[in-house]
C-alpha cells in the first residue's frame, strides 16, 4: 500500500520518488520469485515421490502437503496412468516397474520391519515380520522394496 501512495504522489509531480517506487517494486518481484521457486521445487519433489514411492503416499507426507498439492498429485497420477495405459498394447505398460533391468523372475528378500500380511498371485498369504526371508516374484515386491519395507538380497 505504501508503494501505491508513493505512485500517486509521483504522478502528481514529485519525480524523485521514482527511485523509491522502483526499489519497492524490485523487492516485491524478489519475494515473488523466491516464493514461486519454493513452490515449484515442492512440486518437483512430489512428482519424484510418485515415481519412487508409488501411487499412495504415506499419511505423514500427505499431512505436510497443502490441498492444492494433493490435488496436483492426483491429477499427475491420473495423467501418468492414462499415458501408461495407452502405451503397451491392451493392458498398458507400468513404467514405474523394473527401473533397473531385471535379472530373474523371483528374488530373495528380507523384511526390514513388520508389515503384516501380503498376498501373492496364487492366493497364498505371507506374513511379513521383521527379519524374515522370502523368495517372491519380482513384480510384487518391487514397490515394497522401494518403500523400504523389504530389502533385496543378492545371492
Amino acid at each position: 500500500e505504501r508503494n501505491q501512495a508513493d505512485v500517486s504522489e509521483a504522478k502528481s509531480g514529485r519525480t524523485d520518488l521514482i527511485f523509491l517506487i522502483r526499489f519497492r517494486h524490485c523487492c516485491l518481484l524478489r519475494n515473488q520469485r523466491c516464493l514461486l521457486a519454493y513452490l515449484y521445487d515442492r512440486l518437483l519433489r512430489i512428482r519424484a515421490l510418485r515415481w519412487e514411492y508409488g501411487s499412495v503416499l504415506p499419511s505423514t507426507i500427505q499431512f505436510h502437503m497443502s490441498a492444492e498439492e494433493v490435488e496436483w498429485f492426483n491429477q499427475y497420477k491420473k495423467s501418468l496412468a492414462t499415458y501408461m495405459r495407452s502405451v503397451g498394447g491392451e493392458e498398458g505398460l507400468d513404467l514405474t516397474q523394473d527401473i533397473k533391468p531385471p535379472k530373474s523372475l523371483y528374488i530373495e528378500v528380507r523384511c526390514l520391519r513388520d508389515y503384516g500380511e501380503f498376498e501373492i498371485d496364487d492366493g497364498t498369504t505371507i506374513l511379513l515380520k521383521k527379519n524374515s526371508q522370502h523368495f517372491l516374484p519380482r513384480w510384487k515386491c518391487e514397490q515394497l522394496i522401494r518403500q523400504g519395507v523389504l530389502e533385496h538380497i543378492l545371492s
Partner: protein
Amino acid sequence: MCEAYFPVDSGLGLEENFLSLDDILMSQEKLPGRAESALPRLAFALGPAAGTGDSIPEGSKLEIPLWLAKGLHDSKRRIISVELPKIYKEAWRTVFSADASVVDLHKMGPYYYGFGSQLLNFDNPENPEIAQTILQTFISRFRGIMDSSQNAYNEDTSALVARLDELERALFRAGQKGLNDFQCWEKGQASQITVSSLVQNYGKRKFADMDG
C-alpha cells in the same frame, strides 16, 4: 541409483533461470556500488552506512545485492552505478592468470562463475577481460577437478571440495556419482533394487506430532 527428482539448474551465460534455487542464492551476493543521485527515504533499507537522515545523499557508497543492482540499474544510470568486487579486478585477474588452481574460490564468494557472468550484464569497459579471466580460470581448474572426482572412491573428500566454488562442486558431485555407479556395477550390485534416497530421508526425519 536413478533419481526422479530433477531440480531446476542455474542459467547459462548472461541469463538466470527464474525458478532455479541456485540462481536465487547466487543473486543474493552483494556488490559495491554508489548512489548516483540523492535517494529519498531509502535510508531505512540500505543500512546505517548510508547516512543518518531520511534520504541518502548523492555519491555515498552502498553494498547492494545483485538482484537489487540489476533492478535499479538502467542504461542511463540515473540511480546506481556499480563497481566490480575485488576478485574481478585487475590485481586478482593477474593472480588467476598466473595459477588458478591454488586460489580458494569458496572463500572468495562461493559463486565466482555465476556472479561473474551476471556482472557482464552491467556496462563496464573491463567486461571482455573479466569474461576471459573467468573462462581461463575454469579451464585451468577443470582438469584438477575431473581427476580428483574420478579417483577419490570411498574417501573423505572434504579437503578436495573446500576450495571449489558452487559450480565446481556440482561438477565434482557429478563425477563422484559416475564413479560410484560404475563401482557398483562392477561389484554386481547394479541390479539390486534399492530404496530411493527420498524415502530414506523421510524415514530418518522425525515428523511433528500430528495431534498437535
